[in-house]
């Protein structure tokens, strides 16, 4: 006797349609947020890495990671902070691996120090100041560094930084104060 199996093809198609519609809506929502938050992710990465190409790579990676887990994000209003945190972590990891690689290469090759450009003294001073500032920023604790970076990006106010990082306003002020104080001490 032939065995019969009960199936519901109409229900399967309906489920597929619902899933497709959900995914399309999710993607549309993400792309809307991407237009708003994409530049911020790039700038966070650029602030850490100080290299446009690396920052682009890291920001793209962070956005893709956020997209893959976007449906698991409960509070969509926290997307910006979430993306900033992902980008910052990825950029720090990239910077650390770059520093390690550079350190190895330096140990092997021992390159000569590049002389400062003598033609434009102001430019040399500015470059020197920038490099000193970069080193000082790199030595800051991560929390202070992120607050300093976000307050410098796009003219964020302290309140916006507090909202982005989901921390109290007093904490933002405190971290920013200690960061600026340390930078000034090292550059003074």
């Amino acid at each position, binding site marked *: 006797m032939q065995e019969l199996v009960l199936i519901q093809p109409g229900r399967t198609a309906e489920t597929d349609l619902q899933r497709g519609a959900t995914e399309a809506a999710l*993607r549309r929502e993400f792309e809307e947020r*991407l237009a708003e938050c994409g530049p911020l992710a790039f*700038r966070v990465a650029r*602030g850490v890495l100080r290299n446009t190409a690396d920052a*682009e790579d890291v*920001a793209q990676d962070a956005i893709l990671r956020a997209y893959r887990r976007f449906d698991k994000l409960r509070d969509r209003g926290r997307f910006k902070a979430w993306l900033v945190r992902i980008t910052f972590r990825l950029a720090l990891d990239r910077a650390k691996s770059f520093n390690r690689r550079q350190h190895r290469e330096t140990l092997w090759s021992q390159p000569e120090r590049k002389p400062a450009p003598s033609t434009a003294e102001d430019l040399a001073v500015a470059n020197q100041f920038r490099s000193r*500032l970069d080193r000082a920023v790199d030595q800051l604790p991560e929390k202070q560094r992120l607050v300093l970076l976000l307050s410098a990006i796009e*003219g964020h106010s302290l309140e916006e930084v507090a909202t982005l990082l989901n921390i109290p306003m007093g904490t933002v002020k405190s971290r920013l104060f200690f960061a*600026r104080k340390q930078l000034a001490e090292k550059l003074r």
Partner: protein
Amino acid sequence: MICNHYKQASLEVAARGAEPDPQLLAHLQACSSCRSAFESERSLLGSIDACLRSSANSEIPSSFIPTVRAQLQQESPAAQGERITNPLLWLPAIAATAIILFIFASQDRRVKSQPTDEQFATKRIESPVATATTAASPSQVTTAPISAVVGKRFASKATIKPDKKPVRVSGSDPEILVPPDQEILLARYADQFRQHHQSSATLLTEVAPDQTAQLQVPLIQIAELEVKPLADTQRDVQQNDLHEK
């Protein structure tokens, strides 16, 4: 001492980015040293902020967002679905699976087509001819045990691991070890041999005495006939008629 206190306070105020309180402001207006330190600290922090802002607010490459959108397109579930439904990806896998299943099925069919020793043993027990043969003369039974020991699995086990006693036949059955490449042919030969001998065994079987008791048919009782000549008989009949009259 007083200047040091105000100088420290002025640096902290500068780092905070706030305006000095009236007491500090009065001291800064009175003390040029503290005022210059405060101004230089504010200038330094201003430079730091400017440098950080210029570095952090660099121009975004025009290709950044389009590239990200293109990558999102590739990452979208729809694109993943297209990859899954692409026949170039899953057809080779299905073909390989089908070939493997076909090979396994053909091997399984070949093994099933060869009766094992247990099947032969069962046949031997269930067959009335074999039963009769066994009961009559056990020494004549030779075909079934031969088939039993050339079953594929037992033969291979007996060849590779003889210490595991793989053949489960009676102690009186002969055991034959054959090479793996000849076991199939030998099994077929033994099967045909057994089938051919079933008919001859039937004829050769001695029937047990209890099954072949002679029929006891009673003898027919026939009275003796008296034979008389026909002429005398007719005369007697006539005499009898006269007596009756």
